[in-house]
């Protein structure tokens, strides 16, 4: 039972994770049974698929494709809507693993509406997905504007009660660090970095974008260097802890993101490449590396590449 090794426990934004690996939002988080299964298969914490203001079917397929270098998706934020999740919350009561509830909305105010209801079901953390397009703004994501991002965090903090609030940042901007700082100042308890990188694939034989939505997010090995840089810069400029993600496939990748400054690490796309066993595998690989390098506590790795 690798996940029971004491040295792998981490504290993230006041919540104890059994180990640093976290199931990211949007991957396998659709129902309670799956979340429980992922926790059972080793994840230190799990994230529910992002919850939105009203029911959305998401985009037509193809929504998710992959090459050897990356996964490319535009699922279109399908969600039953925050009011239609009773069965899911019910089934997650009495769980023995930390649960992160991801939320998104279409305006600053709506974030608080969704988050208030979500907080009442007592997830262990509320994650604000700041990467959604800001329909009222310029069309860019909320996460490209420090001021707007700060306001969203502030609004959610007012209604979240005792549940810590973490802000998930988009890498698709030169203002990432400013946005992170604004969230911290607004009271965020932690940061999550990074969401997917904006991209597009064209099938030349069809002469068309591959994804039904044309544009989509890139994740997996291709974005690891972007994740490492983002985390490194956030760690250097913010004090709140970082849940790092982007391109982790194996234990060494996880350690790399931790050395950049992550207190815990998300795993998403790797489920595609290595299956659901990836959590157990990554934990084992981290443990092996730590043993070989005489590292007693995984927390010693956090920010180790900064000197």
């Amino acid at each position, binding site marked *: 039972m690798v996940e029971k090794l004491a040295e792998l426990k981490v504290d993230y934004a006041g919540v104890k994770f059994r180990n640093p690996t976290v199931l990211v939002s949007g991957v396998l988080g659709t*129902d309670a049974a799956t979340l429980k299964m992922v926790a059972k298969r080793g994840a230190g914490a799990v994230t529910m698929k992002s919850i939105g203001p009203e029911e959305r*079917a998401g985009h*037509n*397929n*193809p929504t*998710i*494709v*992959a*090459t050897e270098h990356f996964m490319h998706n535009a699922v279109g934020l399908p969600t039953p809507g925050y009011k239609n999740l009773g069965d899911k919350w019910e089934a997650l009561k009495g769980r023995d693993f930390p649960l992160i509830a991801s939320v998104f909305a279409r305006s600053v105010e709506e974030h608080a509406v969704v988050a208030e209801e979500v907080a009442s079901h007592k997830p262990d953390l509320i994650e604000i997905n700041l990467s959604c397009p800001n329909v009222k703004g310029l069309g860019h994501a909320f996460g490209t504007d420090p001021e707007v991002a700060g306001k969203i965090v502030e609004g959610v903090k007012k209604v979240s009660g005792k549940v810590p609030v973490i802000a998930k940042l988009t890498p698709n901007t030169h203002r990432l660090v400013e946005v992170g700082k604004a969230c911290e100042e607004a009271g965020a308890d932690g940061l999550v970095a990074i969401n997917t990188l904006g991209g597009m694939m064209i099938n030349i034989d069809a002469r068309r974008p591959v994804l039904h939505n044309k544009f989509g997010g890139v994740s997996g090995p291709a974005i690891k260097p972007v994740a490492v840089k983002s985390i490194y810069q956030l760690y250097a400029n913010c004090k709140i802890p970082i849940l790092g993600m982007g391109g982790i496939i194996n234990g060494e990748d996880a350690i790399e993101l931790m050395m950049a400054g992550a207190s815990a690490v998300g795993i998403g796309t790797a489920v*595609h490449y290595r299956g659901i066993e990836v959590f157990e595998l990554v934990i084992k690989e981290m443990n092996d590396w730590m043993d070989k390098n005489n590292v007693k506590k995984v927390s010693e790795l956090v920010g180790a590449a900064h000197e």
Partner: protein
Amino acid sequence: MSDIPKMVEIKRIQKETKNIRTFFLDTAINSAPGQFLMAWLPGIDEKPFGVSFKAPELGITVEQKGKFTEELFFLKEGDKIGIRGPYGNGFDTEGVKTACLVAGGVGVAPINALAIELKQKGVEVKIILGARSQDHLSLSESLLQCGELYITTDDGSMGEKGFTTNKLRALLKDEKFDKIYTCGPEVMMIEVMKIADSNGIEMEASLERYMRCGTGVCGACSINGIMVCKDGPVFNSGQLKKLTELGKWARSKSGKKVTLDDYCRGKC
């Protein structure tokens, strides 16, 4: 390795019934019976279809039901569609010497691929093929080559009037099989499972849920935390019995839990 759609030509279209066609594609894919492809119509959608013929030409057998299949039926030989896969686990045929295959409606697609393989392996095969009416019956010619074929229709428009499960019960009075395989409406498959169980026979069924990735990543196709696309679509009775959602619940495109009935009526 790459899970991106590849454009392939429709080499030949075989009309099975008014509503069912088999599309033979100009590509070679090494798939096991029970595995499926994701078929893409650019600008429209991408949906899963079981492989019904593996060789000499790769074929999928499709019933026209809604938007996607309607668009697919507009295509002519020489047109192209995108495919990726094969995905899923496929049927387990190890050690099987005698088998009964029970197909309902277009669930016959993967059953046909299985029947062909079992025949090649020298397995003794009996097949029960059922549908609402003649218009929903397909691939009987191919199945006839693979073993003894029994046809049932709900309205009696072809073969015996009645359900496949009635026929199965009747057959089991005199016969024994190493394994029963089934694909079709979920209620039918549950019934087949019960019959197999009470006769002490191993069985496998191929399930269907809404799918996006096809590779076990997105969670859209979850049934009790099991991914139909990757852990399935084929499950044996031991596995099926643990699926409390079987026959009752499914998840709509939005991820909302809906009754299987609503799901099948497209109310989601």
